[in-house]
């Protein structure tokens, strides 16, 4: 797709050759990752091998994608500095990073993809309003927290570390300090918040991705095929959308029981109806275009038409919808786990954390720090949704501005 995009948007986005900086930075990150994975070599050689192969694959993709996305060589330095800072941090805290090679890998990959995306759109990002910049910064922090949770968290998410309901800054059994206190089972709240970022945000992200693959694929298919496929899919979606989502999800969970995988599948199925509607209506206006007609007359296959002709022209509205859907799914999952239907208990999960500590709010006058404990995970949920909404709002504004 990118080759189609870049070929006709002017000399600026011509693919340039990887510079020395790019080569060096990719090599450094590869060496770092392989070193992190190979500390595990004697105990778990299979894991280490898969990790090393994945790291190599990631670095190869980075090597290819970097010069494609960053047309301006001046930004290579920023990217390389990002890699340098990460690797330096990794070397300083080497015991932590080498003990959690997968987290080191996810952290590097996540932050590099994020940095690359921001630098690629730097022209726009520079002119973004402060709310959008705030949103981008917050999202970056959440990406880091959820990728690096085991490295950043001082304690485990499930093991009791001291007395229950300790105040902020209390000392734990092993002499460490629980900066945000402990919960009703004596687990460190700061650690649980960090792990919660990984669990809650991760599940919401996977669910949204699944929602999109399912919804947009079926929507584009319905619009391109029309006829009975379109009719059947649309009627099924009509019925599914006639039932309030939360109620329907709760009925389904009554039947199949709860759990992370079940939750992901059920919510993705229910939510893909919205994406289906949007992608179908967007694609409907595209498939009547002359160039699609021409492709059909050329005798192109259905997949070619969907993937090469329709999809590239529907990406902008779908990207904005991705942000909005993510917020919705994220709030939906939080609401479900707040109601007690979510992840299995020892796993940290923001919605469930609010429910479990809700009663502490009554102690606010006696111990303010303890009183706000239930608000912390709720605030974590709210902050991320606000941040994503700010970015989407800016994106939508830009899109509508381009249209006029």
């Amino acid at each position: 797709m990118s080759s189609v995009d870049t070929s006709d948007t002017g000399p600026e986005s011509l693919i340039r050759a990887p510079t020395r900086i790019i080569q060096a930075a990719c090599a450094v990150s590869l060496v770092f990752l392989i070193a992190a994975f190979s500390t595990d070599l004697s105990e778990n050689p299979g894991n280490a091998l898969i990790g090393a192969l994945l790291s190599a694959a990631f670095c190869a993709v980075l090597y290819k994608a970097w010069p494609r996305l960053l047309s301006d060589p001046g930004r290579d330095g920023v990217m390389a500095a990002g890699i340098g800072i990460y690797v330096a941090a990794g070397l300083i805290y080497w015991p932590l990073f080498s003990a959690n090679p997968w987290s080191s890998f996810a952290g590097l990959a996540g932050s590099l993809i994020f940095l690359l995306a921001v630098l690629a759109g730097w022209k726009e990002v520079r002119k973004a309003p402060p709310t959008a910049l705030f949103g981008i910064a917050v999202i970056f922090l959440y990406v880091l927290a959820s990728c690096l949770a085991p490295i950043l968290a001082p304690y485990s998410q499930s093991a009791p570390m001291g007395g229950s309901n300790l105040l902020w800054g209390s000392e734990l059994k092993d002499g460490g300090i629980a900066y945000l206190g402990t919960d009703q089972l004596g687990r460190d709240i700061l650690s649980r918040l960090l792990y919660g970022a990984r669990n809650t945000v991760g599940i919401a992200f996977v669910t949204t991705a699944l929602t999109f693959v399912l919804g947009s694929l079926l929507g584009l298919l319905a619009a391109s095929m029309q006829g009975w496929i379109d009719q059947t899919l649309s009627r099924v979606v009509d019925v599914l959308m006639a039932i309030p989502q939360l109620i329907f999800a709760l009925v389904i969970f009554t039947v199949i029981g709860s759990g992370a995988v079940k939750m992901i599948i059920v919510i993705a199925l229910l939510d893909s109806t919205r994406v289906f509607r949007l992608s179908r209506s967007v694609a409907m206006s595209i498939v009547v275009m002359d160039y699609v007609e021409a492709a059909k007359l050329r005798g192109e296959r259905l997949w070619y038409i969907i993937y090469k002709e329709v999809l590239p022209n529907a990406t902008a509205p779908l990207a904005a919808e991705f942000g909005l859907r993510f917020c919705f799914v994220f709030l939906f999952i939080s609401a479900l786990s707040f109601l007690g239907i979510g992840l299995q208990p020892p796993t940290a999960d923001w919605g469930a954390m609010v429910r479990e500590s809700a009663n502490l709010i009554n102690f606010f006058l006696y111990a303010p720090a303890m009183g706000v404990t239930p608000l912390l995970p709720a605030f974590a949920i709210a902050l991320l949704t606000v941040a994503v909404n700010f970015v989407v709002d800016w994106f939508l504004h830009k899109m509508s501005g381009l249209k006029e």
Partner: protein
Amino acid sequence: MSKILATIAQRLGLGVLTLFVVSLVIAGMLELLPGDFCETILGQSATVETVNACRKENGFDQPFVFRYADWLSGFATLDMGKSLANKRDIAELISVRLSNTLFLAGFTAAIAVPLALFLGVLAALYRYSLYDRFVNVFTLTSISFPEFFVAYILVLLLSVMTVGENPIGPNGPWFPAMASVSEDTSFGERLYLVFLPALTLTLVVVAHMMRMTRAAIINLLASPYIEMARLKGIKNSRIIVKHALPNALAPIINVIAINLAYLIVGVVVVEVVFNYPGLGKIFVDHVKFRDVPVVQASAMIFAATYILLNLTADILSIVTNPRLMHPR
């Protein structure tokens, strides 16, 4: 005029059909429940005879079609059977809860709808001003907040932090954190008790409604007749209230109806937070027990309300459309 009646009749028919299909979907889903209720409540020590007797008593030995027809006719005549968990009559159990939920939703709507319209028109009137920008950020933020976050913040600010400052009772907070109403609570007291849940829901729905109101009006401001009015030298506020607002009515009514539908459903979380004895609370509780008849009945009521409100929105937007009301 007959054309519009035909359209409305068609929509109504479609609504009834949807309702039927939805009831079938819900019943079909619950039919898939692995194991049955009798085995669960009687436990592993139950003999085959007692399990069979229990099945017979609850009608689980009949085929699905019969049970569905039976349930449907029962539901239509407001006879919804008995709860499996506590043997109480569901119609009785639910009707009180439903009226509580409707009370909360109605109270919220009474605050939220006028407020949203007023603020939305104001934002359209002073668009791109500081007020508008503030409203934009504020509404975007409150849309993004989970309901329980808003609820607990309000509890903290208006209940926990104000303990001992109650102007009415001794040593109480301004507003109670638990909305524990019973059947013999008086109307005035009821209003006071549900104030916090209603305020929570108001904050959640006002943002969406006023954004849509603002968008609907601004959308119209580019039309030629508004420009004409402006060229005539009419005041800005008069243009918006007299010229733009009536034409923006259809989308605004639509948004209000959708938000009311959302209210009926969105109460679930708020009812749990405030321990309010409404339909949402009972629904969530019985989902945990896997009490099928109660889940089925309350899910059906939720779905029916949702469909009905969406249908009303649909019909109202036809009725308020002058092009459909006065065909050439």
